[in-house]
């Protein structure tokens, strides 16, 4: 009786579902979801599967999760990869390094990007277009080449050292490359536009009369900024910060090219585990834990952002 009932319910559910899908323009609505499933959820599920597999020599370098042999169906799963990375401070430290890199560079991008975004947003329309194009032009060159260019600029025989020696400020080239300052420089340079563009999007809509009004009501420029401009550009600040913070946590190319051995970063560690150590399960476990730890702040950010936008509709 119960079984019949549940079958009936499932049947009813499917009928409703089909009716709903017929009403909607199915392909139009679900194309982005298919995209997400195909290129995000399926790979993510695969990584999760590998992360709870047992590693072994071979191709692929892990044992199948499910196997069917004479002994019957067998699940060969382990949490040891997770236990391993959380028991070794090396991994935790690299993760903290990445978080601190992301945090520092987000703050720097904000501090540098905000005045630029403000300036661009408040320029005359014809100048604004030129400035925006200047902001976007670097994207026409591959990101790898741009980071490589910094390597060339910063190296011992690079142009900065040459100029400084030529001008007589220094006699020996300064070693500017292969430390975490070079990494921060590279990250800030690369991600600055991702901070500026969302900020610009909010500031360009900003009513300049509000600044005059605050001034007129007795607010000095600092207070005008803190009490009017800043709160009204908060959604832009949040959006820009997320666009910088999240990818920088997983960044491995810039530390690889500009960084040294003074600090190890999370993204680089995952890369090494995958391609140098060929320990796919541990690498996957690292990737999964990285995502899980990052998801919470992102969700909180998103909720704040949505609430703020909703309040200002």
């Amino acid at each position: 009786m119960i079984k019949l009932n549940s079958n009936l319910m499932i049947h009813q559910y499917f009928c409703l579902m089909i009716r709903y899908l017929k009403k909607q323009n199915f392909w139009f609505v679900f194309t982005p979801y298919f995209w997400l499933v195909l290129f995000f959820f399926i790979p993510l599920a695969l990584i999760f599967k590998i992360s709870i597999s047992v590693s072994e020599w071979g191709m692929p370098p892990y044992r199948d999760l499910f196997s069917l042999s004479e002994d019957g169906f067998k699940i060969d799963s382990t949490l040891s990869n997770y236990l391993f990375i959380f028991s070794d401070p090396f991994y935790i430290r690299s993760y903290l390094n990445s978080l601190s890199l992301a945090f520092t560079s987000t703050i720097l991008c904000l501090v540098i990007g905000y005045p630029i975004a403000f300036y661009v947003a408040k320029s005359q329309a014809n100048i604004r277009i030129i400035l925006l194009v200047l902001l976007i032009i670097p994207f026409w060159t591959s990101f790898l080449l741009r980071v490589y260019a910094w390597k060339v600029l910063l190296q011992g025989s690079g142009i900065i050292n040459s100029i400084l020696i030529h001008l007589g400020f220094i006699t020996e080239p300064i070693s500017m490359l292969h430390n975490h300052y070079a990494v921060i420089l590279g990250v800030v340079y690369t991600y600055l536009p991702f901070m500026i563009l969302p900020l610009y999007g909010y500031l360009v809509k900003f009513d300049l009369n509000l600044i005059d009004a605050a001034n007129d009501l007795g607010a000095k420029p600092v207070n005008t900024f803190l009490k009017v401009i800043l709160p009204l550009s908060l959604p832009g600040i949040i959006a820009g910060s997320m666009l910088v913070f999240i990818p920088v946590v997983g960044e491995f190319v810039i530390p690889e090219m500009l960084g040294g051995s003074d600090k190890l970063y999370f993204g680089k560690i995952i890369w090494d585990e995958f391609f140098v150590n060929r320990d796919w399960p541990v690498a996957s476990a690292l990737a999964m834990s990285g995502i899980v730890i990052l998801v919470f702040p992102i969700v909180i950010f998103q909720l704040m952002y949505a609430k703020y936008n909703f309040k200002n509709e």
Partner: protein
Amino acid sequence: MSNSFLEIIDVTKRFGDILALDRVNLKIEKSEIFSLLGSSGCGKSTLLRIIAGFEKPDQGKILLEGNDITNLPPYIRPLNIMFQNYALFPHLNVTNNIKFGLKEENFSKQEINNRVNEILNLLELNGLEERKVNEISGGQQQRVALARCLVKKPKLLLLDEPLAALDKQLRIQTQFELVNLQNKLGITFIIVTHDQEEAISLSDRMTIMQNGEILQVGNPVEIYEKPKNTYIANFIGTANIFNILNKDNQIIIEELNYEIKNINNKNFNKCLIRPEKIDIKKIENQSDNSNVGIVKEIAYLGSYTKYLIEVNGIQFYSFMQNSLVSDNLQIKWDDKVEFKFNDSSIFLFND
């Protein structure tokens, strides 16, 4: 020293090649409602922004109660401005918008609350305290903007097109409210407007500006009845302007071939007759009276009717009250009418 409340002395302002203000001189007295009237681009808004302190004049001085405030930043000037779009802070509710200016002045919490309650009562904003400013109506927003200024008890309130964003019904009501409020508080108001009716009905005194220059200063009656030139006459209300001929010691309105008698000063070349001062009357058959024209257009406007009259190829307006006694409603298109005006309603000027 008989200083005026606010003195604007030789203020000049350029934006690139454009001369926005050209040696503007104005004296505004305490507790009056003064309007700056002009079409867009005449410099009235620039003048207001200079008084508020958002722009610095290239030359000239602004004196408030005898003190030079030309170089004071806006946040120190003891005056406030109400913006055309109100510029309310969208992230704050009604109360916090009103409190904003008080918090900048280090008043005690008690004082701030007292003042806010007082102004909420005065402007009938009770019950809206917690509302977001984009959740209230245009008229309420206007009152919040006004409250936000008045709560600071400014010596001078500048209003940039204060009624432009309201619909017509509300505008007329708000006009009266503004005047009442000003009478109650005694604060000097300077109003910028492009709406001549608004300027006439609100102001104690007003000025007409054109191309960055002050054309005339006076009370609304003076400006309406005795405009200095054709531009002003046409800007305020409807104007019938005719040329004056001085022929053999006779003063003649050229277009109407009408002689004006009893004039002392004969050195005028233009005259103005306001349409409401020209009476028309339907005539059945050709009389010997020379003041006859043909009705070319009729616009019935309820309390009065506008008639466009053609005489000798020129056209002018006559406005007739639609009262019980007048039979002007009988007049139809292309009717012949006799028109009539007193010599005393002719204003002579040079242009």
